[in-house]
């Protein structure tokens, strides 16, 4: 037998015996395998899961209607007195005598909902712009990116406040639109950048060389590979959205109706009592910080897991 064929056979046996070739682990699967062992991710995911669960079951957990002034008799404007913790009301009441714990619980729903909706809208808008600019290039790209640059040049909170102020009537919807608008250019710019990088990559060129239709090239090869950083950014933006939404509510641009509680709005209405009753601000502010931290931790660990340089 010729040495060449013998070696060829050996090679086949070798390739056959390599366990990795039969396992078939996709990128997402290997990223997930790394995430599962990452304590940062576990803590962040734990926080988010706990608050999401809380928000879901809060109507059951809240012992009282958050809009009812159950402890009104203990409120005194004159000597600046508000209800203290007492049996049945572990955190006491707010300045109107409404149960603080129940308000916090129900508020989690609103806060998460606002942040999530705003980020989803922002992501949607950003994706559209990014795909347009990244896939077409040329003058479409130039036009879209100049608009995005203008939006990015305004500080985000200022932009959100200006947009919020455009609306005649303040409502939760205003906050969502304002926060979403701030996010659109961030996602748009990011996706455009990653799309352009994909456009220049060899595997996209390879798909073109194969004669794969252009639409397929964009949606099958460019977009899925460009999405990684955007997903990470979206997680991080959820944290920002919670804080931005809270800030808008705090500044009084949110819903004027205080019967449905929301953390930012609770924090805003607590500002008159900072020196005498800091607990009114402490609880909602603490919740905002912890949830935002949860999203940040998850976002950072996702970024690490999706980093192709760390792939094994």
């Amino acid at each position: 037998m010729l040495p060449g064929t013998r070696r060829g056979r050996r090679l086949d046996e070798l390739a056959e015996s390599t366990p990795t070739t039969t396992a078939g682990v996709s990128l997402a699967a290997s990223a997930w395998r790394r995430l599962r062992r990452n304590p940062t991710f576990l803590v962040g995911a734990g926080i988010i899961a706990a608050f999401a669960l809380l928000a879901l079951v809060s109507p059951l957990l809240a012992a009282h209607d958050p809009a009812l002034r159950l402890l009104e008799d203990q409120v005194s404007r004159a000597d600046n007195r508000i209800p203290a913790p007492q049996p049945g009301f572990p955190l006491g009441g707010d300045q109107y005598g409404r149960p603080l714990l129940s308000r916090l619980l129900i508020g989690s729903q609103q806060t998460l909902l606002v942040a999530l909706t705003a980020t989803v809208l922002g992501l949607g808008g950003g994706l559209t712009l990014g795909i347009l600019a990244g896939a077409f290039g040329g003058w479409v790209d130039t036009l879209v990116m100049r608009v995005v640059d203008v939006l990015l040049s305004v500080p985000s909170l200022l932009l959100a406040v200006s947009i919020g102020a455009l609306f005649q009537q303040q409502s939760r919807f205003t906050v969502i639109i304002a926060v979403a608008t701030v996010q659109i250019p961030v996602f748009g710019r990011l996706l455009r950048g990653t799309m352009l990088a994909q456009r220049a990559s060899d595997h996209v060129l390879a798909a073109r060389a194969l004669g794969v239709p252009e639409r397929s090239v964009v949606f099958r090869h460019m977009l899925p590979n460009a999405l990684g950083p955007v997903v990470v950014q979206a997680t991080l933006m959820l944290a920002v959205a919670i804080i931005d939404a809270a800030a808008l509510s705090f500044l009084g641009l949110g819903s004027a109706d205080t019967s449905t509680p929301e953390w930012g709005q609770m924090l805003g209405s607590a500002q008159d009592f900072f020196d005498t009753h800091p607990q009114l601000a402490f609880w909602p502010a603490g919740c905002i910080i912890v949830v935002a931290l949860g999203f940040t931790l998850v976002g950072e660990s996702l970024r690490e897991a999706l980093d192709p340089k760390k792939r094994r």
Partner: protein
Amino acid sequence: MTEPTPSPARRPEAAPPPEHTGDALVELDEVCVHYPIRRGVVFDRTVGWVYAVDGVSLRIERGRTYGLVGESGCGKSTLGKALLRLERPTSGSIRFDGIELSDMSGRRLRRMRRRMQMVFQDTLSSLDPRQSVESLLVEALRAHGLDEGSESTDRLLRELLSAVGLPAGALRGYPHEFSGGQRQRIGIARALAVRPELVVADEPVSALDVSVQAQVLNVLRDLQERFGLTYLVIAHDLAVVRHVADRVGVMYLGVLVEESDSDVLYERPMHPYTRALLSAVPVPDPEVEDRRERILLPGDLPSPAAPPSGCRFHTRCPWSRPGVCDVERPSLRDVGGGHLVACHYAESIERGRSPAESG
């Protein structure tokens, strides 16, 4: 083991075949690819041009291998992409099997792609990391309506993998799970899936480990014999090109400076650049290394955005003559037997004019 040979190449037994015998699958005529250099704050304007490929004519005969060599920035990859119409040529004509490609676009061009494929240098980045090997291969088939039922497709995929020396189990794997050599086999399988006639291989082995390069080169050769493929192999490694190519073209700064049948070119290089290039390639044999004459070129490759006047090589050429080489651009001329050289003094240099006489 290996007997040291006194000269870098041996004399071929037979005379080189006359020019233009077989039928040409690819004909390039005066192909230019110029890239605009854009600058601007709000809107970009063109401030100059990079002359990546500047008037290259060549023909590749059916079933043969054409090797294109040159250093980085000489335009060889751009020429390969222009030939596949992955770059739009600025001017010139590209004919594939008699069909003009240079002004083709859209659906017609996409259909033509089935007949000509590409193999890339970077095995990892040229395979979409999110697709399994199976879906990478099926996509190629689907793009040209070649997947006829899952059973026949499945059989076809297995045949493809075995042709490039991979086990059928590889179908379920993802690109990052394979070694560089295995990934290059996948890349070759993908190119072959659509049964092309022409394969452009751009540095097919330069990213691979030395011991694996030979495996891939052998696979390419076997496939050529089996499917009657025509190759354009683009490489900076002259030894690799010599090993695979029937005819070789040497590029410098966007132009062909020499072209000839492989044996002739390596045995009797005539252009000063080719001679310097060949003398610079290290040979894994100390006896040859100690004895050979080296032509050290001074300086660096000039920028393709501002190519030198006259002969593009005159700024680094040890034999260049002022008043001639820096003024007059030499054209590619036949010095006998289809050996084309673009040098004013090719013959006198070959007869042994020393660089000092250029004074």
